[in-house]
């Protein structure tokens, strides 16, 4: 932890502009973006009261998100410690494979509107904001992650993404994994085949063979990260909740970007502190604050809009059934495999269990929502879909019925990255909290 702080302090004096320029980025526009995100981070995160001290790690991650972390990855590549940087947009791309082949996996920017006018020359206006965002970050040259990625791995999940990847393939070195949309023995075999094809493609890119040893180590590395996040999540069942939903959301957002080992250490430190706070009855919100389980579409950095509204209104988010939440860490890869083949199968099986709304039926997600609401003592469920996300919009009706049957108050929200509905959302969320 202290090492990390020293590094960041040193980094604060370092001028990153030449690095961004060398990546071919639009540096003045990027300065503007960083300014806006920094301002937002201050207003949303640093304004919170009673944060656990160990969340300082998250401040460091955000401070270095487009600077120190990028330099660290580029330096690792230059020294030969890492072979390539491999970007992706989705939970379905197994990081173990990238790591085992000597790559650094990173999540790419998709959480803010950018260069929308340019995007609409290539994608329809009625496209979900997350897709428009990643296309906009590329077209506007303001995402250092995509600019430093040697390979970008897409996945055929929703229709919007799979068609947008056809366009993205004209912009970056792109490989797309096929994901089945139903769960059965046959599709699992197909998926295992896809995982193998991906492993070959990544090996070809990095020039490094995946060995039983490197894959075993990568599985352990990713599982350790998940175990730490599981520990932290479990502390949130306490009333008062020891950590805010905003900070918890940021732990998973950080996990897509930061070094796995450093992140695991920091999350374990946060879990230590939060376990102690739970034992001592110390919370981030007063005891009795209304507790919300979030479920729905993912929230990429810096999409903190909804959590900010919920928590500023006096509620506290105690869990996230989402890709930027429990789906990221709830399942581990079986660690008993010894050969590369066995381990690739174990990886495929683990990732096949991610309950994305692209699957039909998707009963696993519904069960998870009700189970999490009970385990985390949620008073209500807020289900949110990004505008134009047909899958989550449609599934919200099923979620609502399940919540009703379980006797848990429920509210569905449709929104995007823009702020002009913040007033209306605040009213709806405050009224929901008043109703609980």
């Amino acid at each position, binding site marked *: 932890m202290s090492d990390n702080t020293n590094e960041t302090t040193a980094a604060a004096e370092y001028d990153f502009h030449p690095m961004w320029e060398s990546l071919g980025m639009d540096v003045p526009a990027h300065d503007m973006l960083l300014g806006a995100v920094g301002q937002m981070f201050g207003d949303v995160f640093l304004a919170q009261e009673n944060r656990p001290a160990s969340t300082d790690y998250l401040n460091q991650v955000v401070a270095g998100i487009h600077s120190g972390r990028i330099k660290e990855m580029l330096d690792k590549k230059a020294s030969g410690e890492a072979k390539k940087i491999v970007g992706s947009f989705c939970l379905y791309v197994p990081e173990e494979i990238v790591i085992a082949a000597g790559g650094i996996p990173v999540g790419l920017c998709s959480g803010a509107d950018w260069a929308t006018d340019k995007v609409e020359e290539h994608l329809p206006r009625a496209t979900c904001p997350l897709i428009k965002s990643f296309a906009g970050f590329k077209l506007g040259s303001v995402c250092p992650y995509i600019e430093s990625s040697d390979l970008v791995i897409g996945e055929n999940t929703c229709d919007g993404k799979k068609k947008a990847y056809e366009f993205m393939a004209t912009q970056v070195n792109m490989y797309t994994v096929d994901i089945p949309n139903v769960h059965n023995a046959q599709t699992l075999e197909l998926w295992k085949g896809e995982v193998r094809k991906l492993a070959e493609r990544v090996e070809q890119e990095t020039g490094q063979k995946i060995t039983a040893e490197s894959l075993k180590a990568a599985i352990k590395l990713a599982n350790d990260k998940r175990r730490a996040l599981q520990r932290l999540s479990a502390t949130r069942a306490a009333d008062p909740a020891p950590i805010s939903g905003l900070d918890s959301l940021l732990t998973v957002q950080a996990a897509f970007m930061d070094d796995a080992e450093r992140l695991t250490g920091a999350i374990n430190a946060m879990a230590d502190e939060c376990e102690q706070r739970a034992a001592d009855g110390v919370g981030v919100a007063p005891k009795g604050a209304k507790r919300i389980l979030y479920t729905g579409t993912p929230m990429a950095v810096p999409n903190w809009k909804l959590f900010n509204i919920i928590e500023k209104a006096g509620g506290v988010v105690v869990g996230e059934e989402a890709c930027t939440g429990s789906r990221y860490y709830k399942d581990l890869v079986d660690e008993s495999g010894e050969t590369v083949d066995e381990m690739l199968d174990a990886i495929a099986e683990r990732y096949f269990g991610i309950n994305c709304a692209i699957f039909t039926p998707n009963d696993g997600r519904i069960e998870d929502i009700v189970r999490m609401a009970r385990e985390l003592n949620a008073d209500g469920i807020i289900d949110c879909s990004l505008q134009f996300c047909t899958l989550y919009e449609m599934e919200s009706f099923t979620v609502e019925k399940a919540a009703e049957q379980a006797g848990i*108050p429920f509210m569905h929200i*449709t*929104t995007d990255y823009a702020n*002009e*509905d913040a*007033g*209306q959302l605040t*009213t*709806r969320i*405050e*009224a*929901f909290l*008043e*109703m609980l």
Partner: protein
Amino acid sequence: MPAMAGGYGIGVDIGSTATKVAVLDAGGAIVHTELMPTGFSSVDAAGRVEGALRAAGFPVDDPDARVVATGYGRIAVPYADKVVTEITCHGIGAARLFGPTGTVVDVGGQDTKVIQLKGGRVAKFAMNDKCAAGTGRFLEIMADRLGVSQAELSALAREGSETKISSMCTVFAESEVISLIGRGVPRSDIARGVIDSVVARVAALAGQSSGGPFFLTGGLCENGFVIERLRAMLGSPVTTCPEARYAGALGAADRARALAC
């Protein structure tokens, strides 16, 4: 100058179009109401409310009084003891006016709310998303386009025959109205189409709820033709009363009274 025995509650409901005020005495009886346009600024409206209440003998700084603010401009009321959302307040106010069980439909200036009441409490609610269709604003825009007042719009509509305006979006619906005007469709028919379009959106939102009886609150509660069409489209009785315009303010005043007494 009314002499108030014991504490009293003042509810201030600053909507996007109109500001409503209600004062309840310790026994819960309505002793005063105010209605004024909100105008450009909620802060300014809150100031005018303060003046009007003082003139009526209910100064907001009276130690016996408590003030609850609600509505779109609720955070702009510096003298409020508490802020409660208009959804909760409309629920409480409607329960008081109509009874503890049913569905409240409130068509406001910029949003439409459907609130399901059970045992006098809000059990569930729905609100239109980021869109002006099915709100008071839609009627204002269309009345302007037809060059009539809102009262004239419903009078015209009553004489008109069914006319389809299919766009869900206010902006597109406005172009539809323009093309209907261009085609020489009678104004009364267009007015009918406009009213039906709003009522259909409201009915769709209300239809998601568990059912009647329906209570109409907010600015449209005195619009007889809207109520008639809403009854027809919901296939269910729709009750309202002149005080229903003050439902939010009454709910807020009720909360304030609980703080004061």
